[in-house]
């Protein structure tokens, strides 16, 4: 997918701010460049400003300050219908008084496209989402998944270069969501369109996107590829928001360029960590470790520290075991181990040693 992307920014937000009431900023100083053909997801909890950004891009909200450019052209003052941006809504927004065919015909009619060409395009778009047999149906006669396919086809039928999706799969159940996630990414890739996708579901963001912008408090906390976001979160918000994560509180004792030692708050035990967001010795820090990177009775070499832990709960989940431990005075430390033949099954009350590679343990802001 990366090969379809050009370096030149197709969409760019330049120092964009947005306030509804003139007192608080919903979007604070947003700078974002989206390449042509890129699938970018805006991920964040509700109220983080991601939907507002999408609405500003679509033209339904105006930026209080800053510039939004589309294909090099400033679009702040262009009304929504002249932006030529396709949009898919969470509640589908299929016009209830029109059939599926009429819904798809609508964007073509307002563009004054001839009847025969319209029909060709409608057929192609419906085939694209495997809904070719449903032209004559009304939206109320379709299931949620089918409606969202039609909504997708309608957003694509007039061949926009940019498609915005506002939590399009939020109202669907898990199985349907996964099928559609796959189809949306395939379509976006096949058609070479640029997609800006808003969701609060991190799995969706990680599986679909080229890049993910994690929003919180009106700012982009981190903009990175899914793997980078997961592996190397830049701050504790991202670390906790993306995937499952163990955090330990502590104070930086010594700080080198790529290694620091952190004294944990509860027990005073010391661990090695990768300094990401700490400036100097004596800083308070949150240390983040992914559950699947923790090992029991580690054989990791002499420089690593290990911690004492007590098993509180052992959950058999089929492909993995999930163990909850008490570590450094906290009861919520999770370890995930793969279900292998040689994997020891622990039981509550067992005392174990745990450890990890120092680069898997990131010392972040507190």
């Amino acid at each position: 997918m990366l090969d379809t992307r050009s370096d030149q920014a197709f969409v760019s937000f330049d120092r964009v701010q947005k306030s509804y009431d003139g007192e608080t900023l919903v979007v604070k100083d947003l700078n974002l460049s989206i390449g042509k053909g890129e699938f970018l997801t805006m991920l964040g909890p509700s109220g983080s400003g991601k939907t507002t950004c999408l609405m500003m891009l679509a033209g339904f909200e105006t930026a209080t300050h800053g510039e939004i450019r589309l294909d090099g052209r400033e679009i702040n003052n262009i009304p929504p219908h002249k932006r030529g941006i396709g949009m898919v809504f969470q509640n589908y927004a299929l016009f209830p008084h029109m059939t599926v065919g009429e819904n798809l015909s609508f964007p073509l009619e307002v563009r004054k496209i001839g009847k025969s060409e319209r029909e060709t395009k409608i057929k192609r778009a419906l085939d694209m989402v495997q809904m070719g047999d449903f032209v004559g149906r009304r939206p109320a006669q379709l299931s949620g998944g089918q409606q969202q396919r039609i909504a997708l086809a309608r957003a694509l039928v007039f061949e926009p270069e940019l498609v915005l999706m506002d939590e399009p799969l939020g109202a669907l159940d898990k199985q349907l969501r996964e099928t559609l996630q796959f189809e949306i990414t395939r379509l976006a890739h096949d058609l070479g369109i640029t997609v800006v996708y808003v969701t609060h579901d991190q799995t969706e963001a990680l599986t679909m996107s080229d890049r993910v912008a994690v929003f919180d408090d009106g700012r982009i906390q981190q903009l990175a590829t899914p793997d980078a976001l997961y592996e190397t979160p830049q701050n504790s918000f991202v670390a906790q928001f993306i995937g499952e994560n163990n955090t330990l509180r502590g104070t930086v004792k010594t700080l080198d360029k790529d290694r620091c030692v952190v004294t944990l708050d509860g027990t005073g035990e010391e661990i090695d960590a990768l300094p990401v967001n700490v400036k100097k010795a004596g800083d308070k820090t949150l240390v983040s470790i992914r559950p699947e990177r923790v090992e029991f009775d580690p054989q990791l070499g002499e420089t690593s520290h290990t911690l004492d832990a007590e098993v509180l709960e052992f959950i058999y989940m089929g492909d993995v075991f999930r163990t909850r431990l008490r570590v450094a005075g906290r009861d919520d430390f999770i370890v995930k181990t793969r279900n292998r033949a040689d994997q020891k099954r622990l039981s509550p009350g067992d005392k174990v040693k745990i450890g990890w590679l120092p680069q898997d343990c990131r010392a972040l802001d507190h």
Partner: protein
Amino acid sequence: MSSATGPDAFTGATPDNAIRDADRAGKSGGAMLAADGTPLKASLAKSLRAQKLRALALIAPLLIFIMVTFIAPIADMLFRSVENDIVSQTLPRTVVELDRWDGEGVPDEQTFRALGADLMVASELKNHTRLGSRLNYETTGVSSLFRQTGRDVDDLGEIYADQFIDLNEAWEEPSTWMSLMADPAWIENHEAWAAQEDEDETPEPRFRVSPTAQQALPRTARLFSQFATIIQTEDEDSPTEEEPWNIVYQALYEDLTGGYDAGAYGGDIQALLANAAEAAASFEQMNVRDFFVEEIDEDWADPQVWGTIEAFSSPYTAGYFLSAIDMQLTPQGIEAQPEDQQIYMLLFQRTMFMSMTIMISCILLGYPIAFLLSNLPLRTSNLLLILVLLPFWTSLLVRTSAWKVLLQQQGVINDILVWIGLVADGNRLELINNQTGTIIAMTHILLPFMILPLYSVMKTIPPHYVRAAKSLGATNWTAFWRVYFPQSIPGIGAGSILVFILSIGYYITPEIVGGTTGTFISNRIAYHISTSLNWGLAAALGSILLAFVLLLYYLYDRIVGIDNVSLG
């Protein structure tokens, strides 16, 4: 690929499938049985019956109230639009005789005799004036003709009475008539009644005519019976003490000269009758037809009068309905009213036209308001909604009168227009006592009925449809017209039906501000109910109005669908 994925896909047993399976099983294996072996349908009906009875009991008080105070009177009123038994009940003999009339010229002597007898009875009962007013709706002048005839009809048959009495004094005696006419059983009863001490306490037994008299002297018996009854009921006297009407002597003369059966009576009465019958053959005769035409009123020679009586002689008539659509029932059949008397079609058309205009004005004025209300924050829109509802808190009469103040030529609006120079002082606008006044005032009064359904429908249209339309490239206008407006149509439909049906039957406002050109059919109905007292015509007009509203309702249901109407 299958059209459905995930939960949409068919995946074995679902509640729906289970129902379908059960349904199939039920069809193939006869009726489904409940656990105790009774048919399932029967036991279901049984279990629902208690529920239904309970529901019925809950609505029963209101239902009875409405039946008694609303539906029954309306049904009775509507029935008056076809009811027409006044002619056949008041002129029963005449109606029978008129069957022989060919519609040309003046009916024969026999018909006039029947008319004489009928009118004598009617004038004693004072029914002839009612009949006159009724027939006057159809032919003007009949009312005064009947009133005149009622005064003079007493003299009819006087010549025979005199001759009978000259022949034998006994004909003057009520007792002679009693023994001739009364049922022997009645005479016994009467004697028993007369013998009791407190005869004022119980009424005299109702007179019964003897079968012998009916057989031997049919015309006399019938008329005397009516005479006796009227004497008893209207005058509260006894037929045993009153000399019969002159016309009874005429009937006796007719009976005696027209094939009298001499063997029916015995004794003195037979001798009396035989003597009278013999003498009657040489009695001086009186031509009843000439008496009516020459003595009472020459209008009785007018075939138009007779035609009207004949046309309305059946107990049911389409006459009121024909009048209501400017037609009339004439002896020659159905034809249009004279041009200068046609009014109802004009009024119906005007009512339709003005109701349409009012409805359209309400849509045009109400739609933007409802649109604004539905897009405002709840606090503001509730406040504004109160302003919309404010007129409901004022009396309708006050509002309409206020329009009178505002709209009249020396009124506020004209004053302002003159003051700002838009209208010359000598050329003030006529805004009231015409159609303009009615339309303005009624649009104002009915506007809330348009705004409320519109608002409640618009409130449910989510804003994302318009956004979606704009994102698809529609301008503001296209997004509104192609996406928002169609979804607001149920509201327009509900509001329009409400406003149209309310205005079609509106009475008070057109009455006050409508003048002569701005009145509705309802004003005419009210006129016939309370002033002209032609209830039959009022009922026919009302029935047409009702039928028209039902027709509109039906059409609306067919075209838009009544379940699309939303009042919120």
